């Protein structure tokens, strides 16, 4: 197990503090045994950890049960998948394999529950596989409504949340009161505000807050307790903004799309920036900012969470868009919001949601005269040359085009 990088303290030099925070986030990212979460659990008897897969789960419920929500997004490019591959054909994406590898290899042996959100059929089926393979771990397929009427999808979702709440009470042995839940909502509102600030900072000064760092800081939020992560976010935002050691380069500005589930290797994100693209928005780790406004912290918390989900949440391929006129507009909004020049579609190989959505998004971009390119990756892609090549060409083309 990797030794934890010490929690850094601000010391007057913003660049050094920023780098120390990133180093800590990197150490958390590199630790395939989730040492931070293990230590949190061991610190007090009776503590519970509940894992969740991408895209979104209401972490507030887990938090309100005094448990630690642990984001699990596969094994990346550092894990050797031996048993995980035994469960999947070659035409299925990587994330379920490495997730099973994490489970079978004992790296998740401290996790008391697992939530599998409705992303696609692969993750959906993984929920049942988990029940068979790890019968002593609580696991649940977390279905969300595809109908956005309060009286229809809303009521269904409230009842689903209520079931989840009961389950979590059972798993953690802690009663989840409305008061605790409202408090947790407030804590997460704060965290989401900070993530939005972080994204705004990057869109404003991408050379100061480069995409690989943003990714690492967000990834730390999947493992750290939310309060600690908020502190990290605050520290990073202030330090990165204040540090004067980096200067603007002649890069193009792009939005990444298609990375909402299986994560790209860190090297891929680095390669994009090396190739001359500032990533100014993306759909990585959507759980950190799925709800786009503060959720009210008074009243019925489940109803508030449901309303937020139905009416104030991000869009992505796994969500049905009832209005054809709105289809794909979320991507245009991201481009506008971040002042991007173009879009890079980077989807995991065999990712149904990303790949089926892509032609529709491309049509929308074409109509809006926004340039784009597309390629595929796997969480363990080792080969970055073609990606650097494509991204570099795209960036040059954008610059020529916008300069003309």
């Amino acid at each position, binding site marked *: 197990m990797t030794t934890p990088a010490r929690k850094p303290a601000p010391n007057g030099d913003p660049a050094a503090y920023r780098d120390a925070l990133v180093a800590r986030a990197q150490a958390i990212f590199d630790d395939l045994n989730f040492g931070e979460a293990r230590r949190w659990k061991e610190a007090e008897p009776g503590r519970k950890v509940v894992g969740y897969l991408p895209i979104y789960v209401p972490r507030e419920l887990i938090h309100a049960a005094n448990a630690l929500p642990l984001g699990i997004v596969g094994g990346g490019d550092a894990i050797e998948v031996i048993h995980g591959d035994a469960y999947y054909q070659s035409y*299925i994406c990587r994330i379920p394999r490495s997730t099973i590898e994490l489970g079978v290899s004992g790296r998740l042996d401290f996790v008391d529950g697992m939530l599998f959100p409705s992303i696609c059929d692969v993750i959906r089926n*993984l929920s*049942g596989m988990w029940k068979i393979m790890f019968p002593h771990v609580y696991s649940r*397929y977390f279905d969300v*409504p595809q109908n956005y009427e309060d009286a*229809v999808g809303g009521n269904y979702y409230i009842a689903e949340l209520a079931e989840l709440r009961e389950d979590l009470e059972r798993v953690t042995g802690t009663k989840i009161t409305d008061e605790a839940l409202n408090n947790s909502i407030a804590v997460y509102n704060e965290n989401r505000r900070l993530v939005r600030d972080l994204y705004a900072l990057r869109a404003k000064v991408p050379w100061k807050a480069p995409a690989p760092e943003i990714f690492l800081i967000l990834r730390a939020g999947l493992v750290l307790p939310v309060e600690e992560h908020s502190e990290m976010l605050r520290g990073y935002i202030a330090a990165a903004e204040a540090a004067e050691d980096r200067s603007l380069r002649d890069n193009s500005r792009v939005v990444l799309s298609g990375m909402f589930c299986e994560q790209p290797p860190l090297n891929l994100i680095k390669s994009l920036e090396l190739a001359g693209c500032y990533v100014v928005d993306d759909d990585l780790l959507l759980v950190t900012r799925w709800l786009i406004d503060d959720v009210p912290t008074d009243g019925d918390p489940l109803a508030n969470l449901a309303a937020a989900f139905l009416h104030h949440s991000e869009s992505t391929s796994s969500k049905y868009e009832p209005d054809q006129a709105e289809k794909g507009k979320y991507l245009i909004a991201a481009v506008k919001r971040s002042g991007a020049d173009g879009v890079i579609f980077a989807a995991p190989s065999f990712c149904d*949601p990303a790949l089926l959505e*892509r032609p*529709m998004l491309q049509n929308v971009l074409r109509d809006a005269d926004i340039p784009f390119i597309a390629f595929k990756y796997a969480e363990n892609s080792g080969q970055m040359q073609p990606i650097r090549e494509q991204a570099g060409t795209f960036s040059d083309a954008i610059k020529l085009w916008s300069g003309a």
Partner: protein
Amino acid sequence: MTQPTARPSPAKPPIAEAEKDASMLKQKAMMAAHYDRLADAPETGAKVCSTFVPGNLNELVMCFDLINNLPEVNAIQSGLRRKSGAYVLEAEKQGHSDDVCTYVKSDIGMMAKGNIGPNGRKMPDPDVLLLSYTGCFTFLKWFELLREQYKCPTIMLHTPYQGDGKITPNMVQYMVRQLKESVIPKLEEVSGVKFDIDRLREYLKKSAEAEDDLVAVLKSARHKPSPIDAFFGGIYYIGPIFGAFRGTDDAIQYYQFLRSEVEERIAKGEGPVTPEGPMQDQRYRLVVEGPPNYTSFRQFWKMFYDEGAVVVASSYSKVGGTYDFGFRHDPDRPLETLAEYCLGVYTNRSLPMRVDMLCDYIEEYEADGLLINSIKSCNSFSAGQLLIMREVERRTGKPAAFIETDLVDPRYFSPANVKNRLESYFQMVEQKRSGTRRKEVAA
């Protein structure tokens, strides 16, 4: 060396006309009439509703005088007619990934190439897309893609997944609310026909009648020899009821006819009719999980026929409803029954439920083992099948085998490979069987 007995080099006989039984011919006529109804729609003014086989609400669709069009069935037809390969390529040319479902790509490619149906006539544009989102994520994107093309009203009916292996009251209420507040009003709007719940009840009653006969047919595979093939033959048996005929008198007649045909075979001790002829010599009884391949359907079936393998139960014949577990459309609870129907289809069942089902089939139908045909296109089926295989083997002690093909993409059907694995599997079954017998003797 004694000269090995030379096998006569087979002078390639012309491919014999596929043998069909009377029920197949009857179904063919029904399908032809249906496709003509669709092709005639622009002239007759009939409105067309496209929807999916799992979660197909044919009774409801008929309440609004809409003709039910099933893009999945169209893709199957394209596969059987060997047109799907070109359609898939066409869709990929348009920018669809080679990684994704070939049903979708066959459908999109077919549209791009003039949307000519199996009867050689142009298929009508749909007036409404009923997105019955049941047991398959791709459905959601498929109809978003079609909506982009046809710009027609699109109605979402979301079927929650049985993640915990049960249907909860919340799920049923959610679906009934969707039907009442969204699906029915929108169908009224599109069709101009007022919803009449008694008309729905009438159709549901008819559905249940045909369903009884279907179940009797499926259960007939308990006989030895089995009078049916529940996978290849099963495709035919489920055709009308999973398609546009459930709730009609046509379906009732078809299933009565089919049932009597099967009962006659039982009485005579006959096996099913396959394209190569009746299958009398049944050496292996199999349960099959997963859909078939349609581009080489007959060749695939022949590989089973040649080995004397008959399929006694299959999961694919439950994608449009799991009637054999007792579900019947219930006219007394019309909307609830539609919800429960959608919730119960095979691909909406959790993995542990699927394992239970397959183990039960092996026992109930006294099968020799499980064969999984893993389909590249269909993650709903395929993701987790290797664990299903392992579990079924562990629980039943019966051997399982795994082959990989695709629904309608001919590039993914490698006959030599499939045959090699099938042969290895059958020989393994045979060897184990004789081993077991010897052990019994020894004991």
